[in-house]
C-alpha cells in the first residue's frame, strides 16, 4: 500500500503505523529504515509503538456465551414488537387525554359561576399546549429534514 505524501513528521508516523500493521511496501520500508537510522528520538518512539503492538496482538475481545447468539434475533424482534406497542399506547393515550381535557374544559366553560380569571387561565392553557405541540412537530418534521448538521456525531 502506498503511504499518502504528507509532511515529514506525519509521514514518519504513517510509515510506522503501516509497518506495525503489515501494510508497508518495500520502498516505504526502506524509507522508514532510513528515517529510524537518522533520528534516535524517532527510533525510541518506534520501539515504544512496537511494544504496544506486541501487547495488543495478544488481546482479544471477550466472547459472550452461545445463548446470547441464539437469542439475539428474538431480542431484536422484541424491540420491534415493543416499539409498535408503544406507538399504539401513545396514540391511544393522546386521544383519550385530549378527549377528557376537551370534555372537562367544555363543562368548565359552561359553568356560569366561573370567575373570568379562571376562563382566561383555561384559554391560556389551551393556547400554550397548541403552540408547544406545533413547535415540537415543526422541529421534528420540518427542521430535522433541512438541518445540515443532523448527521454530525458529536
Amino acid at each position, binding site marked *: 500500500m502506498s503511504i499518502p505524501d504528507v509532511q515529514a513528521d506525519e509521514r514518519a508516523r504513517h510509515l510506522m503505523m503501516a509497518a506495525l500493521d503489515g501494510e508497508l511496501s518495500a520502498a516505504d520500508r526502506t524509507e522508514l529504515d532510513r528515517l529510524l537510522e537518522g533520528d534516535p528520538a524517532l527510533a525510541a518512539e518506534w520501539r515504544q509503538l512496537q511494544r504496544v503492538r506486541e501487547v495488543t496482538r495478544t488481546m482479544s475481545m471477550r466472547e459472550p456465551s452461545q445463548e446470547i447468539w441464539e437469542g*439475539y*434475533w428474538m*431480542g431484536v424482534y422484541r424491540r420491534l414488537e415493543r416499539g409498535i406497542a408503544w406507538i399504539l399506547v401513545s396514540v391511544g393515550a393522546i386521544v383519550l387525554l385530549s378527549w377528557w381535557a376537551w370534555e372537562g374544559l367544555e363543562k368548565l366553560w359552561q359553568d356560569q359561576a366561573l370567575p373570568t380569571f379562571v376562563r382566561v387561565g383555561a384559554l391560556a392553557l389551551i393556547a400554550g399546549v397548541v403552540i408547544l405541540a406545533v413547535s415540537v412537530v415543526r422541529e421534528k418534521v420540518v427542521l430535522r429534514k433541512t438541518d445540515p448538521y443532523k448527521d454530525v456525531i458529536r
Partner: protein
Amino acid sequence: MGRDDAHRGAEEVSATAVVGDPGTDRALVLQAQSGDNRAFGELVTRYMRRAYFAALGLVGNHDDALDLSQEAFARAFRARRSLDPERPFYPWLYQILRRLCFNFLRDRKTRAAKLAAASAWMAADAGDHAAQDSPQRHVERAELRERIEAAIATLPAHEKEVLVMREFEGLRYREIADLLGIPIGTVMSRLYAARKALAAALEGEP
C-alpha cells in the same frame, strides 16, 4: 406439478430474477423490503457478531454492546425501505450503530461510570501466547494487558473506534477508511494517536 405449483414456481423464478442470487445481502435486503421478516432475520444472524463486537469495542461493556447492537438492527429494520439494495448492508448498519454508540458515550455522565463499565471486556488471553509463556511472563503480560485495556477505555471515541477495527476486528486500512468515510491518512493519524496514548500508559508502569 399442479397448476398452483407451476404458478408458485413461476413466482419463485420471477423473484429470483429480481433479487439475484438468493442468500446475498442484496437479495435479503430486497426480500426484507418487500415484507419478508425472515430475510431480515437472516441479515441479523449474518452480522450480529460483527455489530456486537464493534459496539463492545466502543462502549466496553457487554450489556450495553448487546443493547446498542440490537437497537441498531431494530432501527435498520424500521428504515429498511430507505436502503439502496445495491449498496452493501453492513456499512449502512454500521453508520446507525456508531451514531447510537457515540450518543451513548456522550450521554454517559461521569468518568467513573465510564471506567466501571469498561472493565473486563477483553478475553483473559489470546490462546497461543498463554501456552508459550513462562508463568512469570504470563503474569507480566496479563498486567500489561490490564493497563492497555484501561487505557483503551479512556481514548477519545474516534481513536478508539479505529484502534478496535484494526486490532480486534483485523480490518485493513482501506476497509476502515471505507466504513468510516474518511481518508486512509486520517485512519493512520487516529491509529497513531491511539497507540501513543497506549504507549504512555505502558511507560507509566511501576
